[in-house]
């Protein structure tokens, strides 16, 4: 069941009505749990049984770890059982065929006439996400950051809660479980705020990401023009458009998830904070998929030693963290390369910072408007954004452009799955052929003109609506402006006009078919 489908809208309205009608907290939670399993069953398959199994194992192991009568050895045993079970199942379902395929490839290279048979293993939807939910719970109990949940119902609801189930955000148990202490109250304010978030998410997904997907597929999935025969113009245009597509697709999904939870009275963590305004790779990972990067920081990078064990170990830790981050996205070589590539970017950035730390820190901090890293965190990886203001200056724009050039090269690696295709595409991205770019711009003038007209119309409308703000605070204020907050606080009549505009835009500009959310596959 896709978030942007009519089915989901009916399902969601039904859930909200029933939860509102139920008087007791326990029944509300029970209904939400059943609804979440139903949602998963419709979206995926009978493999929701796997999720129940992981929930049970981690729940009882969590209790075992926290049990005062358990010895340290027993606590470790519970931790190992929970971790191995969760990661083992994740590894089997997600990476088994990849490992077999790679081994067979190695056999072929070495001339060994043997191949291990591949099995038709179905990847359970959202397994990477709910496994991480379960692991964060276990690790936090072991690290004594939280007490184990006393209610199996509450814990299983935390793992299965449908807005966050399939593609995140990765919610920590300490963020979610306390919210289950109270009865679910559906307030008019939450409905307005949630519906606003959901509507912006649907616009991001259906209108922007899905329309971009058509052009991206023309470049990267076009049987008529294989990537190796594509021109530099196509590769560059396709890469930029894919970078935009994946952002709007994923952040659209997150907005719908956050909005759905908000209507039901739950707060889920933000996952994006204008990542394409990042002025360094480190900053990018503070703004992109924030819940994943902070998970990897807290449960992998810092336990590995972070930056506390010398420079060489810091670089090694960064590389390990990013390679695993890449592999988390999918069982394919390009994801591994993508992770390693980002590891190299982070190490390079750290190297530059280390050489001239004062100057760079000062500038980066100014450019990104971030406070210094908190004492308990690590400046190299995934520090949470605490301040949203971006300052746009000429030097920060230059840094943003340079950073994004490399971030988008990363998206090319992410999108192209075959290694020979990837090599050809990267070559065309790095060694730009100006002639092909010029020809491409001329050939597609009509498409460029049309999009410029549509974007221009949007900008003009925005400028008119926020004319007063621009006059007082300048254009930069528009970039920093929190539109969602503004929209959800509109007076009811104006909010109605906004909802009407959203529906009208969906009716007019949604493509005939809407592909799945990109992050569903992870």
């Amino acid at each position: 069941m896709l978030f942007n489908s009519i089915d989901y809208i009916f399902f969601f309205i039904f859930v909200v009505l029933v939860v509102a009608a139920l008087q007791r907290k326990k029944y509300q939670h029970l209904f939400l749990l059943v609804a979440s399993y139903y949602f998963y069953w419709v979206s995926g398959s009978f493999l929701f049984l796997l999720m129940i199994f992981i929930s049970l194992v981690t729940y009882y192991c969590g209790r075992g770890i926290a049990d005062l009568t358990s010895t340290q050895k027993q606590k470790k045993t519970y931790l190992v059982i929970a971790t191995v079970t969760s990661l083992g199942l994740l590894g089997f379902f997600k990476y088994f065929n990849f490992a077999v395929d790679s081994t067979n490839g190695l056999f072929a290279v070495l001339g060994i006439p043997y191949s291990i048979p591949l099995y038709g293993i179905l990847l359970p939807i959202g397994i990477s996400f709910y496994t991480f939910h379960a692991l964060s719970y276990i690790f936090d109990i072991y690290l004594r950051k939280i007490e184990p949940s006393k209610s199996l119902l509450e814990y299983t609801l935390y793992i299965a809660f449908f807005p966050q189930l399939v593609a995140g955000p990765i919610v920590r148990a300490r963020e979610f479980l306390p919210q289950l202490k109270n009865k679910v109250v559906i307030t008019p304010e939450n409905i307005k705020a949630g519906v606003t978030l959901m509507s912006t998410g649907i616009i991001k997904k259906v209108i922007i990401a899905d329309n971009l997907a058509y052009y991206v597929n023309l470049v990267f999935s076009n049987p008529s023009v294989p990537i190796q025969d594509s021109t530099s113009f196509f590769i560059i245009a396709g890469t930029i458009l894919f970078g935009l597509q994946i952002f709007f697709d994923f952040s659209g999904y997150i907005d719908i998830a956050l909005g759905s939870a908000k209507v039901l009275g739950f707060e889920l963590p933000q996952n994006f904070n204008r990542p394409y305004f990042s002025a360094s790779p480190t900053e990018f990972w503070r703004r992109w998929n924030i819940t994943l990067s902070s998970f990897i920081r807290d449960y992998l990078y810092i336990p590995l030693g972070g930056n506390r064990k010398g420079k060489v170990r810091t670089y090694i830790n960064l590389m390990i963290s990013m390679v695993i981050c890449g592999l988390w996205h999918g069982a394919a070589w390009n994801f591994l390369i993508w992770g390693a590539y980002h590891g190299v970017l982070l190490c390079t950035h750290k190297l530059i910072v280390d050489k001239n730390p004062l100057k760079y820190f000062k500038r980066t901090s100014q450019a990104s408007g971030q406070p210094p890293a908190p004492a308990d965190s690590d400046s190299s990886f995934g520090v949470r954004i605490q301040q949203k203001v971006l300052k746009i200056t000429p030097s920060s724009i230059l840094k943003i452009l340079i950073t994004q050039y490399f971030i988008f090269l990363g998206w090319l690696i992410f999108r192209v799955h075959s290694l020979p295709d990837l090599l050809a595409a990267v070559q065309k991205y790095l060694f730009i052929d100006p002639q092909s770019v010029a020809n491409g711009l001329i050939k597609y003038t009509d498409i460029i003109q049309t999009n410029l007209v549509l974007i221009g119309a949007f900008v003009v409308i925005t400028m008119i609506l926020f004319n007063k703000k621009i006059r007082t605070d300048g254009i930069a204020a528009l970039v920093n402006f929190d539109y969602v907050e503004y929209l959800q606080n509109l007076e009811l009549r104006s909010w109605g006009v906004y909802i009407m505009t959203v529906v009208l835009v969906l009716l007019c500009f949604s493509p005939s078919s809407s592909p799945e959310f990109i992050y569903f596959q992870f």
Partner: protein
Amino acid sequence: MITSQYLKIALVISISLVCAFIIYFAIIACLVNPYIQTHTWKQISNNLDVYESNSGTSENSIYFLGNSQVIHDFDPIVVQDYLKTENLTFRVYNVGVDDDTPLQRLTELQGIIRSKPKIVIIGFSYTSFSNLTRYVPDDNLAFLSGRIVMDRYSRSLYTKEQLALIDQNVIEQQIFKRKFIIPAIRSLLGIHLQERENIVNDTMSLEQKNIIAKNPYDAFLAPVYQDDNPQKKAFVYLTGELARNNISVIYINMPLDPLRSDTIPDSTRYNFFTFMNSTGVKNYDFEKRYAGYDFHDLVHQSKYGREKFSKAIASIISQEVNGDAV
């Protein structure tokens, strides 16, 4: 108090939805409907009108149906004038449709039969019979919903998705039309599709033709294999049904620029004619009859080529009529 807040929100959302739909339908009526009347749908719509107006008349009519090659290459006035010189009175119609295939024409079969033409000439190229072209543009199928009736066999050759388009109700059809909003805006702003302009207005230079002819991914090179496919089945059924209703059928293998013709594999040619001969339909091969200067691009003829080709077709019709084939 709180309950009234809930009601207000529900009311605002409901009114917003209704207003959005009203504005949307107004956009479709004022912007999209006039726009689509100038493109491929206009061709199909015109064809259906022709069949409808000819139903029940005693007029001697001839239809030439096929793809864009027919639209460009065939001039019915030239044919009518030629036939008049031989004292033959026929109303000749060019009912070509861009990107046409036999499968798409099944949607018009009942209309054609009802209008009782004397001869139906069908003009395609190899690509229309390829295993790779089950393709019928969604737009054409969607706009046909509500206007056509297809028999069970014809429906069986379409995919489930295609049938869903054909069977759309009025509301679904209006929603489907949203895909034309951007082209309609583009048209309103005078931003034209460049590739199309090249084909229609400019005659390609030899150099341009050479570049396009060497593109190995050109959809026109889709091969024809020996095995059966929905396009071949549609052709057999279409011509069979026409013949069963005493309508003469002639197939024309449409002319191609020699540069394009050189890129067609012999296997495609062999497989195609093996199939065509097996159908028993009288066919004429025009693929290599004309020189490069008779074409304005690789597959469509210039006005000189068009006149030559139309006269050749007139001559075939004359032979058919005089040979008492009709």
